[in-house]
Structure formats: C-alpha cells, structure tokens
C-alpha cells in the first residue's frame, strides 16, 4: 500500500510537469492554431539556461526566474521573426518551420553546451529526502510538485480571471471576432507564444535537477506534451492540466506492477480515451 501511495506521489509530481508542458502547448496550438514542434526544444533550452544561470549567478532561485524568462524572450523572437510570416501559409509550412526550429535549437545546444549530458544537482536546501511515514521521498520532488502545481494554478487564474486572459480564451474560440472588436490580434499571438514558451522553459528548468541535461531531452517531452493536448482536448486548458496528471499517475501506477509497460501506457491511455471521446477529455470540437 505504501508503495502504491509513493507511486501516486511520483505520478502527481511528474504529471504536474507534463501539465505545464501541455498547458503551454495547448495555449499555442489553441490561439495560434499551429503545431509547435519546437516546444520540446524550448523545454531543453529552459533546462540548459537554468544550469548556466545557476553557474553564473550562483543562486538556484534567481536561475529559476531568469531561465524561463530567457525562453519566453526566445519564444517572443521566434513568433515575431518567424511564425508571424507563416500565418497565411498552410499548416505544412508552419509544421516544417517549427520542426526545423527544433532541430536548430537542439544543434544550438550542442554548439553552446556540448554533446555530452550534464548533471545539475538540486539546491543544497532541497537535497536528500524526508520521511513521509509511508515512504521516503526526495525533497526536491515535493518542491516540484508544489511549484508546478502553483504555476499551473496561477496560469489558470490568469486565463480565467484577468481581462487579458479572457481575451486569450476568446482568441482560442474565435480569432476573427476578437480582431473585429479592435484587439491587436498580432500582439495577442506574440504574447500567447511567449507565455507558452515560458511554461515550457519553466518545466525544463524544474526538470533539470531530476533528469539532468542532454541535447535530446526535449524529444521525449514533446511527444508527451502532444499526448496531453490531444487527451485534454485541443485548446482546452483545464483539459491539459487533467490530462497531464492522468498520464503521470497512470505511468506511475503501471510502473509499480508492470514496469515494461510504463512508456506504452502513456499512449494506451490516449488511445483509450480518444476511442470513447474523440474530442478529448474536456474538448468540445
């Protein structure tokens, strides 16, 4: 029983990271209507920027703020200089652009940080574990669970309770209408992409001490992020959060009893849900 409880805890921590990734991707896909294949690479850049920021500034907490902001700026530049020119083009052009961008970013990581993986330890205060009674659990994972949960909540709050959040949600529903109301739709697209990139960056930064850094680290996460978006419902933010948690917990529980299937379960859950609800858990289209 304690094993199962521990695994569920693992699942929630991992699921929160999946939710952060899925939320960012869902925002970009929902508002900009483009498949962002560079989302995994942005996640990797976030992790590498954190390591560099911590090395240069000597403080994990400042690094955790600075690194995702760096990724958001990168996202801003990508949207402004690249994607903006492709809105009129078809999906295949956008797909090729973001896919090419993911390769460029991965190669860029190799050029800047080298091809060999790097370990990045959690800050001193979060090293080691705590006895929760039913299991011994790493402090850093508990921190990730709380921090990612808080970020997901704040993002949801921003989107649900602020005026600009409402505009963004309206943008997902009907871009033309938002534009007709006199709202700068280009600015909306740029902000949405930068916010999505920021979420990927912070997921990467939080993951760095758990999974370490390697140039290909974004590839695994990209696949999972797309599963989260498909499972939650395209453009559905609450769905992305629920789907992230569902996949994380499913993966953890299956790993407790049938370790060989721990990767396959991600896709099995997606296939199962989509067979019953093709529009995803919370999707309406």
């Amino acid at each position, binding site marked *: 029983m304690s094993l199962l409880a521990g695994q569920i805890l693992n699942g929630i921590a991992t699921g929160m990271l999946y939710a952060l990734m899925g939320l960012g991707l869902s925002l970009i896909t929902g508002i900009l209507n483009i498949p962002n294949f560079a989302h995994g690479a942005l996640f990797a850049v976030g992790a590498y920027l954190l390591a560099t920021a911590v090395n240069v500034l000597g403080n994990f907490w400042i690094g955790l703020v600075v690194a995702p902001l760096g990724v958001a700026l990168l996202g801003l530049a990508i949207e402004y200089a690249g994607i903006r020119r492709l809105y009129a083009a078809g999906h295949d052009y956008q797909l090729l652009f973001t896919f090419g961008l993911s390769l460029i970013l991965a190669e860029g990581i190799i050029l800047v940080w080298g091809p060999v993986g790097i370990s990045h330890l959690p800050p001193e205060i979060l090293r080691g574990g705590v006895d929760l009674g039913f*299991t011994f659990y790493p402090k850093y994972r508990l921190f990730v669970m709380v921090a990612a949960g808080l970020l997901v909540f704040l993002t949801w709050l921003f989107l649900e309770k602020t005026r600009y959040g409402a505009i963004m949600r309206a943008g997902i529903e009907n871009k033309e209408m938002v534009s007709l109301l006199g709202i700068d739709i280009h600015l909306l697209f740029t902000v949405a992409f930068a916010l999505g990139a920021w979420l990927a960056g912070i997921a990467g930064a939080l993951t760095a001490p*758990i*999974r370490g850094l390697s140039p*290909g680290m974004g590839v695994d996460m990209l696949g999972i992020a797309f599963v989260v978006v498909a499972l939650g419902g395209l453009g559905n933010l609450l769905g992305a959060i629920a789907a992230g948690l569902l996949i994380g917990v499913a993966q953890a529980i299956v790993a407790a009893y049938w*370790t060989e299937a721990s990767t396959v379960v991600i896709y099995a859950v997606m296939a199962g849900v989509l067979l019953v609800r093709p529009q995803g858990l919370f999707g309406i289209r």
Partner: protein
Amino acid sequence: MSQFKRRDVLKIGALAATASSFPAILRAQSKEIVILGLWDQTGAFADVGPLNDRGMKMALEERDMKILGRPIKYVTRDGGTQAGTSTRRTEEAVDAEGAKFVVGPWSSGVALAVSEVAKRKKVVHLFSGGTEDISGSRCHRYSFQWAASPYTAAKTVVDNFMKANPKAKRWHLLVADYAFGWSVEKYIKEVGKTHGIEFVGADRHPLGEREFSNYVQKAAANKPDVVVMINFGGDAVAGAREIFNFGLTPKLPLIMSWSSGVEELVQLAPEIRENLWVGTNFYYTVDTPAAKNFVKNYQAKFKLPPGYAPSAAYSMTRMLLAGFDKAKSDDVQAVVKALEGLEMNDIVGPMRVDGATHQTLRPYFLLRCKAKGAMKHELDFADVVATGDAPLPKEYAACKDIGSF
C-alpha cells in the same frame, strides 16, 4: 558535319544503360577496400554513434587509410538504432558501395538483425555489445563479438564486489528490456547464486527510459543492500541520478554493471558517483601500451578521454585490420579464417578470438568511483579495482557449431 543516325543513338543508349545498371560492387572492386561503419546518428543511441565514428576513424588513420597496400574507403551509415533501418542501410552499402566488412552497430538487439544480413550477404561483421547471442545461439562464420562475454562481465563484477562487500546479499536489479539486459541479468543471477545473493527484485525498463522515479521507489521498498543497474548510456545516467535523488546512494552501493565508463561518469556529479561501482569493457587508465597511446591521441583531439564506445570501435577496427594483415588478402573467407584464433595485445590487454564461437576472450574491468575529495583532477573518476577474464563455461555455451561459409 556528320549527323547522328538512329543506329548511333541506339548504340549510345545501350551503352549508357549498361553502364548505369552495372552493379556498383564491380565498380568498387578496382582497388579500394570498402569498410562500413554502421553508427547511429539518430534514435536511442544517437549520442553514441559519433563517438564510435571517432574511434573507427582513428584506427584507420593510424594506418594512413591503407591496408595491403590499397586504399581503404570508409563509408558510414546511420542505423537510427532501429533494426529495420540498420539492415536496410547495411544491404544498401554492401550492394551499392561494395562494402564487404561491417563494423557496428551499437545496440545488441539491432546488431542481431544486422548479423543475419552479414550471414546472408556473406560479409564480415564485427560487433561489440552485451548480447550473448552473436557468439551464442545465433553464431555463424561471419559475425564476431569484441566485448567481453556477459558471463565474463558478470563474474568480474559480482565476484570482486562481493569480495569487498561480503555482507551485501540483498540485490535489486534494474534491467534494460532488450537482448543486452537479458543476457547480463541471466549471468549476474547465475554468478550471484554462488555467493548466496538474494535477488529481492528485478524490474525491466524500456530502452530510452528517462523517468526512473517509479523504479527507484520500488527498489527502495524492497530494502536492498545494493542496487544493480544493467542498462547503458542515457538510461544508466538517468537511473543513477534518480537513485541518488531518492537518497539510496551513497548510503547503499550502486553497481553499473555494463557501463560505457567515461561517457556516463562525466554526466554524473561527483556527489552522485560516490559509492558507485562500475563494470566496463574499457577505462582510460587501463595500463597497456596500446591504451596509453590511444588515450593520449584521443585526448589530444577531443579533450575528454575515451570511454567504451570510441574504444570498442577503435579496437574492433584494429582487429579487422590485423585480420587483413594475417590473411594477406581482402577475401572475405580468408579474413574470417584469419580472425578465428587471432591473438592481439590491444587496448584492453591480451585478446584472443575463439574460433569456435567468434567470442573475443579478453579482460573486463571493475571500477570504484572516487569521492569528490579524493579526485586528483576533474576527470579522475575512478580506480580500476579488479580485472577478470573468466571465459564462459562450456555448460552455458549455446554456440555448438559455428557452421560453414
């Protein structure tokens, strides 16, 4: 000026058609000896392929890209860490480039498929990896195994670890779920029996796994004296990191039973390496003249010392070239016969290719990582604490008859 007649056009057309359909293999036969390096640039071992390529190139360049007085044409293909891609591209390189000698790939499961191509196409195939089947149940005349037998590895690791930690009798295994993992797991359990080791858990994980928290949680619940990983590359690094994050190491020893050595150790912070024991086919401080020379040249070029991946490619290529020298021919069958029974004193020390199984009989190494304070420099990861070369006992040998050409 004379004009083309219909007959001339037909003649030229026929000539062009003949030339273009001429098998490329005949064109390549002129002088060059074509050797294929099948190294992954994509897929799970994308990070290893470039290192293999470095090692192989160095071995060829040592001989000025020549053998038997003829130029060597080194061609490479990306196997994508996939059996389908690797076999297709091997066949293409054999047919189109005229490659009769294949070195690689890196994954055991994929190499077994490539070995079947080598058998069918009758080309020499050298491989280094953890599956016992290349020189075991699926042995044949064309494939050779450079890495130590999984039995040699297991015996070296288990015997010497138990000598240093006689009370560590409860072992939990984390095993990569493919040919290599299964082979090493089998022999670790066999050798473990002789020490009275109790295997309290053995979980298999998919190749390319990065989320190890679930496995580590299970391992911790079994309250082991030691955790043993039978996995490789990114999997081993991710596993070791998570085992540390969960506080199992350095309190408990962790064994990486079949490691690439430097390439994995450099990815782990010194804190994570504490109480880490590492079994490997090569480590850069191995005290042999060939290793010293190789390590010096490699570091001069690439800064980091070589781990198992470039070293295996380097030594396999040297073994193949030694086969050419001994055969004094590039005829496939002559080279195979020359490789059978070949003896070399190479980077790992004395090596001999068993003619009956095509398994290289050679030393395997057990390292103990150093605590941060004991490291003399940042690359001073570990000491070689034991070397073992116990060959596979006859009762386990699955290669009963290597067969004919």
